[in-house]
């Protein structure tokens, strides 16, 4: 075997790097879900009364709903009674006050993931909220952010300290009745991040949350709420990983963004949950509801996502463009390999005048994976001069995979300009030949072409993430060509 063939072989057999398990003592609820679980959850979190009521309302509504079946994904029904709804590293009486008090095992885990929780390290310009299973274990740079007036804390803390903000905004973009998984999340969400940027403030650093599922048989239900008040600006990043396990784990998150007048929110995700093994065993079910409300005039929300993990991804980060001149953007790279399934896309609802939206979606399907873009562009009658541009490209690598494009376009306003374009193709032999002829290996050539294919999206990511995303893409594609 030649050296390069050997290398390729090694790469193919390379495992999911973040697949380790951290051994810890934990507080974990026994599996099962009923109202008593919700009471306990609310009590542990020390939540105000209105929150418990909200959760119970959501839970009762959830019980009347049926699991949706319209998406282009296949999975066996989830037994919601076999999941544990709370798991957290055991903690001392009052919870950690400083980093020194955090379980060293947890710190070690984050170190291994390359996420520094001490404020000195590599990613020094980024404030991190680290969510481990059901709780937030640490939030960095809190002080510095506080000086700027920015609130950045776990949502459970916000519930106690800023109940008035939560009461006003939680569920105002994604109501608990929205869909099956949003209802479930509203009932049992355990932690997540809360961000409030006051009027006219430009957040001094990038904010980020790192989600880690560690415990077995648990689901992670996180809730993120970001409010950008008038004229403010924030860039938020999100990353996620999980250990390798043979059973599927559920991750049902809700993210709500609210942009007031002239505010700008940039939300980036690099999703790298465990995708399951080569035979499609195990992996995370990633059923997420993400929605932004551009409430104020001239507000702007930009979603950027790189989806490489999860056995099943089911998410549609959306923008409701309520304010006049509001802008919604969606940039996505979704890569599926082996038996992964992704049904992802966006919704752009144009309500205000002169609203505009841009959708750039790049789907890459390899192995036996199914990759679907599903998107809605809806222009209401009030949205004069609305503008949308949509570009969906799919790339097929291998002859056993599928790539699908299901756009929905609904226009009720004649002055709207809507353009949609989609293409599906494979990497052309000509391109490959050209690269190989110039001395690149087939593997490198494919990686290069794919990176070029995704470039439009990657350039939207903050720098550190762009590097990570490119590396991830290379990794996930390995073994599919050669």
């Amino acid at each position, binding site marked *: 075997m030649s050296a390069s063939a050997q290398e390729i072989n090694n790469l193919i057999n390379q495992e999911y790097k973040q697949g380790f398990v951290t051994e810890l003592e934990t507080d974990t609820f026994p599996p099962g879900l009923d109202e008593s679980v919700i009471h306990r959850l609310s009590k542990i979190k020390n939540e105000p009364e209105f929150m418990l009521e909200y959760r119970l309302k959501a839970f009762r509504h959830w019980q009347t709903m049926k699991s949706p079946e*319209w998406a282009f994904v296949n999975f066996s029904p989830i037994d919601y009674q076999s999941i544990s709804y709370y798991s957290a590293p055991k903690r001392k009486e009052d919870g950690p006050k400083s980093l020194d008090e955090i379980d060293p095992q947890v710190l070690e885990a984050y170190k291994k993931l390359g996420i520094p929780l001490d404020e000195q390290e590599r990613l020094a310009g980024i404030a991190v909220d680290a969510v481990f299973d059901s709780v937030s274990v640490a939030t960095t740079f809190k002080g510095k952010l506080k000086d700027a007036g920015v609130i950045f804390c776990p949502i459970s803390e916000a519930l106690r300290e800023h109940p008035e903000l939560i009461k006003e905004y939680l569920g105002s973009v994604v109501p608990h009745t929205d869909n099956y998984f949003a209802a479930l999340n509203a009932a049992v969400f355990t932690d997540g991040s809360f961000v409030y940027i006051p009027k006219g403030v430009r957040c001094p650093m990038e904010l980020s949350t790192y989600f880690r599922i560690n415990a077995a048989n648990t689901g992670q239900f996180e809730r993120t709420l970001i409010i950008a008040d008038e004229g403010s600006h924030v860039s938020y990043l999100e990353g996620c990983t999980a250990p390798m396990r043979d059973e599927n784990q559920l991750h049902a998150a809700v993210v709500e963004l609210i942009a007031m007048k002239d505010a700008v929110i940039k939300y980036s995700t690099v999703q790298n949950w465990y995708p399951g093994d080569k035979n499609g065993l195990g992996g995370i079910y990633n059923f997420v509801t993400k929605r932004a409300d551009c409430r104020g005039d001239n507000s702007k929300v930009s979603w950027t996502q790189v989806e490489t993990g999860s056995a099943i991804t089911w998410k549609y980060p959306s923008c409701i463009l309520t304010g006049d001149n509001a802008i919604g953007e969606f940039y996505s790279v979704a890569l599926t390999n082996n038996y992964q399934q992704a049904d992802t896309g966006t919704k752009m609802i144009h309500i205000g005048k002169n609203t505009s939206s841009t959708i750039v979606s790049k789907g890459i399907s390899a192995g036996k994976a199914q990759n679907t873009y599903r998107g809605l562009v809806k*222009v209401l*009658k009030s949205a004069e001069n609305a503008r949308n541009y949509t570009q969906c490209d*799919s790339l*097929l*690598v*291998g*002859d*056993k*995979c*599928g*790539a*699908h*494009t*299901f*756009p*929905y*376009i*609904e*226009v*009720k*306003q*004649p*002055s*709207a*300009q*809507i*353009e*949609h*374009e*989609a*293409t*599906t*193709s*494979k990497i052309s032999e000509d391109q490959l030949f050209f690269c190989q002829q110039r001395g690149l290996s087939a593997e490198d050539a494919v990686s290069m072409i794919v990176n070029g294919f995704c470039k439009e999206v990657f350039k939207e990511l903050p720098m550190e993430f762009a590097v990570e995303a490119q590396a991830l893409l290379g990794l996930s594609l390995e073994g599919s060509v050669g």
Partner: protein
Amino acid sequence: MAAIIASRYAVEYPNITKELCGQTVSWLQQQRTEAVAKFAEQGFPTLHDEDWRYTNVSAIEKKLFTSALKIPTSQIDRNWLKSYQLKDAWSVVLIDGHFSSELSELGGLPEKVFVKSMANALETHPELLENYVNKAVNDNEHGFIAFNTAWFTDGLFVHVGAKQCLAKPIQVLHIVTQQDVLIATRTVIVLEQMAEAKIIETFVGMDGAYLSSTVSEVFVGQNADLTLYKTQFESEKAYHFSGSYVKQEQDARFTHHNYAFGGLLARSDIHTDLGQASECELNGLYLGIKRQHIDSHTRINHLKPHGISRELYKGVLDDRAKGVFQARVIVAEDAQKTDSQMNNRNLLLSSDAEADSKPQLEIYADDVKCGHGVTVGQLDDKSIFYLQSRCVDEETARNILTFAFANEMVDKIKIKELHDIVLEQVLSRFPQEGVNKEWL
């Protein structure tokens, strides 16, 4: 316990069975019994069916149209009919769902070609028809198919033998003269290998509300070539459903032109299955005015390698009209080297008009070239300005541009007589101030 009956029509069914054709054909009776059971259970499609999410047909259920009775041919205004009937063509006239031999013109058909009414063909060739009826589509597709299988009173059977090339087109005129009636007809078109034909389906109604539903099953043999024109000028209160379900053998070519101008609620299905290296081209133009709702649903199923498909649908929507375009291209695992392109262009002329578009790609093969594009918008300001700068007033400029947008599709008609009829209809629906017929 009796099953819940989803449709009032199913309750009425036993009263009309004796009017139906093919009473003595046992396989058909069997199919009708099954279809009625199926329809009783599911009824007409609802908004919950993904393929019908933009089209609400519940009014058909509410109206409860009754079956049309045969009327004497003498009641038909022949001059009116002539304005739709092509002179240089074989024509088959169906009045309220029943074949009229006096009005039809079938003289001089070549030997290996026969064109018959469905009722007649069921008497003379029941075994042959068994190979085709409910073979290109089945009752599970949606309620209208089961409805049609159970209710059809007559229709058309066209069989073109191998290597026959028809010199003239065949025109089928579906004429509705009565009000508050339901009409269901079934068409089977078979082209044996290397045959070539042009067939025109024209739908015309006099006035008032009625339901017209037609299912066409089309079989295009190896290396055969079929061009199908559908011109739909139903009355402005009519409900119209027509579906063409096509099976293409290897190297077969199928071209469809769909002109949907009439009806209060009109829906057409064009579904085609492509064999190896077969080609299909689907063109469509829908014009909606007043409260019209026009839904075009297409499905192109690439089952085998080397298929080529092209699709272009254009819509012009004014007043409170709603245009729906739903199209799906499916490329099966086997269908490598497929080349498919789909486009939909919509022009909205009024602030109450609506365009819904749902183009879909479902692809399981890797070595393919597939794309689709959709635009929704209004006339280009620059083009209007250009005309204004050449002394054309704004209103005329708009008319010229709107007309030009639609006319691209009309110009695809290769039969002169038909071209003129369709053009006339386009002009009658939009203000033609400034659109000088001399140019055309």
